[in-house]
Every structure is written in structure tokens, then in C-alpha cells.
């Protein structure tokens, strides 16, 4: 079964490129996307996924808000891998994201290849 990845990103252009490159990975499939905190949570409640990629600044709410909600008790199938992928490079974001249950934190400017490598690795182990 392919690794399902959900992308939360407010820029359509960036999200499209991300989804293209993620879909290019073997055994990985983008199961959906959202551009804000409420729409992301709505989607995640109805359909489970393996990997959640979150931007911090969204059209409505923040990726950190999504993390906080997902970490709450009573969530049936929380994504096992929760990645923050943001342009906010301040260490305070990383610390807080980790505290809120993020498993990884990647800098949008130069760490997309690393993110792809991580997802690729996860897909290989899932397979």
C-alpha cells in the first residue's frame, strides 16, 4: 500500500510543485491538500493519512494549530509523521513545533530535498 501524504500549504504554486515532486516518488501518493487550518482539520478527520506536511502560515489559522488539534486526545488515526515545512527559520518555531508533536522540521528554502528523502525512506519501509 502506497504511503499517503497530506499537504497543507496556502500557496497554490508551491503546493502544486510539492505535490508533483512527492507524487514522483515511488510508492508515495498525495491523498489530499488544504490551504488553511479549518479545511485541513476537516479533511483529516474524515480521511486518515500517513504523513502530514504543514506550512506554518496558512490562509486561515496556522500549521501549529493543526498540530495542536491533531495531538488532542480522541483523534482516531493521527498521521504518524508530522512535518513542519516552513519559511520561518527562527529556532523558536522549531522548539514549539516539536513540543506540539511535530516529528520533523524542514526549512522551506533549502531542505525540500531532505524532506523528499525522508518521505521516500518512509515509503520504502512501509512497502
Amino acid at each position, binding site marked *: 500500500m502506497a504511503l499517503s501524504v497530506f499537504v497543507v500549504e496556502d500557496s497554490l504554486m508551491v503546493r502544486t510543485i510539492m505535490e508533483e515532486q512527492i507524487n514522483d516518488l515511488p510508492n508515495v501518493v498525495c491523498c489530499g491538500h488544504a490551504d488553511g487550518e479549518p479545511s485541513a482539520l476537516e479533511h483529516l478527520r474524515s480521511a486518515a493519512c500517513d504523513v502530514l506536511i504543514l506550512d506554518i502560515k496558512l490562509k486561515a489559522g496556522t500549521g501549529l494549530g493543526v498540530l495542536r488539534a491533531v495531538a488532542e486526545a480522541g483523534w482516531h488515526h493521527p498521521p504518524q509523521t508530522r512535518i513542519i515545512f516552513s519559511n520561518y527559520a527562527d529556532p523558536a518555531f522549531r522548539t514549539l513545533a516539536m513540543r506540539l508533536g511535530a516529528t520533523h522540521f524542514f526549512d522551506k528554502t533549502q531542505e*525540500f530535498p531532505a524532506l523528499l528523502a525522508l518521505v521516500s525512506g518512509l515509503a520504502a519501509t512501509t512497502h
Partner: protein
Amino acid sequence: MSKRNNRALPLHISLLIIGGVCLVIGNAVSLWANLRELKTATESQSHTWIVVNRIDDVRTTLMDADAGLRAFFATKNPEFLQHYTAAKAALPKHVAELDRLVADNPRQVALGYTLRQLINERLAGVVQRIAQFQSGDEALAIAQMYDIGGRQTAGIRRLLTTMTEAELALARVRAAGVYRTYVQTNVLAGMMSVVVLLLLVLTYFLIDRNVRRREKAEQALHTLNASLEETVLQRTAQLSQLSARLQNIAEREKMALANELHDELGANLTAMNLDVAAVASRLKDTHPTLAVRLDRALHVLLDTVQLKRRIIHGLRPSLLDTLGLGSAVAALCEDYTARTGRPCAAQVTEELGEIDPEWPIALYRIAQECLTNITKHAQASEVQVVLSREAQGIRLRVVDDGIGIDHNALDKSLAHGLRGMRERVRQLGGMFVIRRADERGTVAEAFLPFAGLAVSP
């Protein structure tokens, strides 16, 4: 106010007072002159009595001489002739004295001349009759004494009476003149007194009016000062409000610009970056030379992204809007440590609850300014930043263990920043205090009350 009004008294009042003083002096001089005239009058009065007395002396001496002669003729006792001799010797003296006393009166001088002649004639007749009597012609001598002598004596007496009356008439004329002058002087003095009295009353009213006017002017000045002060306070309050509004506008514009840079420019750069990086990665094996060029472009892209981040950070701390004030302040501390290598302890309340949307940026800027000042001036080895929610409001406290703020800091280079912080807090209804700590270092404290103290001008 004009210079004129600053004088002790206005010119017309001064002139009135000078006029009054002149009148009083004039009155005194006139009275003094009157006194002298009175003295002269008294002297001339006694002179009159002296003249009258001398006339009496002449009369009495003549009577003595006549009496002595008659007694001699009656008794033939030569001792009685001594009365006559003494009188004859005294008469020229009395007449000479009389002449001297009336020398200033031509009429009396003329009468005196006649008197001397009559007396000489009388004395010559007496000498003749004594000779007749002693030669034995007694009856003739006695008859002539009564006949000729009696007429002569009567003439002299009339003359003496005339002289007395003339002297008394002169005295009366003089007394009338003196009385007239005296009356005139007194009337003048009375009139002057009335004028001085009127001047005094007039001066009183003028001074009274002047004082009232001055009081009114002072009152008006006070009122004007008060209203000016009020205006200054109002203007200051307006300026303060304007400055706060400008600051808010500036912050909003900076935030809008930062958001646009992050959302639009940031997204474009990221999209470009993701594509270029992917292509470069694939070209690495097939077209290494092209991959190198693309890597170069990627580096330029990264530099541009870093530049964008610095610009956004300078415009608006992104932590503030995404993570809240507590995290943003903690990040400031970490940044301080990274820059200076010295510890900065942050004790922050993450959940500040419902607060005024203007507060976070204000408190963040104050914390930022305090840490900048500490870096530049304090020579501190440790810094502590405390952000806490209290029952009454939010408190931010920045404490360092440095050299302590200079008491004159408000007048120096720090002044602008300190005033800015104070004004910022005041506009939000709070207060800002900066002072030397008890032992060493500086304590800066900002408190924003929930109650929202009314902004005082």
C-alpha cells in the same frame, strides 16, 4: 503690557500730587510773609505809643516849668525856679527825641519844627518875665505871664494835641492796612486749602481707579495664562494622540508589507527554489556542467531568500503574530544571547489571554529597545526578562546587572528611545518606569492595566 503702565503712578496723578505740594508750599510762604507783616505792624503800633508818650513828656515838662514859674512869682522863693530850670534843660532833649522818632513822617517833622519855635519863643518870654520880676516890675511880669505866656502855652498844647492825633491817625491807617492784608492772606490760604483738599480727593479717586484697572488687567492676565496653559495641555494631548496614531499606522503598514513579502515574494521564491533544486539534482548525473550553473543560480536564490527574511524580520517579528508575545519575547532573549554570548533568562507567560491587539507589538518593541540599550550601554553579565499576566494587567520587566542607568540618561542619547517607550505605554493607558536597581544594574518596567486608565494629557 506697555512700559507706561509699569510705572508706579501714571503721569497725570504724579502731576496732581506735585501741584498739591506746590500749593501747600505757596500757602506756607504766604503765611510766613503775613507773619512778618504782623510783626512790623506790632512794632509800628508800639512806635506810635512811644511817640505819644514823648509828646506827653513834652507837655508835662512844660506844665512843670509853668507851675515852677507861677510858684516863684507867688512866693518869691528862688527854689521854685529850680523846677523851671530843670524843665528848661529837659525840654530840648525831649523835643530832639521826638524829632528823631517822627523823622520818617514829613507832617510830624513840620509840626515838630513849629513846636521847637513855639517852645523857644515861650522860653525866651519866660526869661524876659523873670528878669522883669526880679527888677521889681512884678505886676507886669505876672500880667504878661498870664496873658502872653497863657496864649503861648495854649498854642503849644494845641500843637501837641495835633501831633498826638496825627500819630494816632497814622496808627489807625496802618492797622487798617495790616488787617486788610491779614484778611486777604487768610482768604487766600483758605482757598488754597480748599484747592489742595479737592486735589487730594481727585488724586484719591484717580489712584483708586488706577489700582482697580491694574487689578482688572492682572485678573485678565491670569485668565489668559490659565487658558494658554489649558491650550498647551490640549495641544500636547492632541500631539500625543497623533503620534500614537502615526505609530499604529506605521506598525500596520509594516505588518502589511511583511505579510506581502512573506506570502507573495516568499511563495514565488520557494516555488522557483523547489523546481530549480529538483532540476539541478536530476542534471547532476546527466549534465554536470549545466547542474553547476543551476547550483549557482540556486545559491543566488538562497541569498535572496535570506535577504527577504531579514527584511521581514526588521519590519515585523513573525513570531509575534504566529506564536504570540511570550514566544516572541523569549526569542528576543535567545537572539540577545546569540549576539552577545551572555545569558538572558526569559520568564514568560505564554498564554496572556484576551488583551488589546495594540499591546503585543508595543511590549515587544519595548523589550527589544531595552535589550538594545543593555547591549550598547549596560555592560551587563546577566539579563532577565519577565512577562507576566497579573490580576490588574500585563507586566513586562527587564532587569540587568550592569553599571546602572545614568541619572541624566533622559537628557542624553538614550533620551529619545526612553521617551518613545514612555509615550507608547502612556498612550495605551499604562506606565513605564526605568531606574537604577538597588545594588547594581537597571530595572525597566512597563505595566498595561486591563481597566484601561484614561490617557491623561
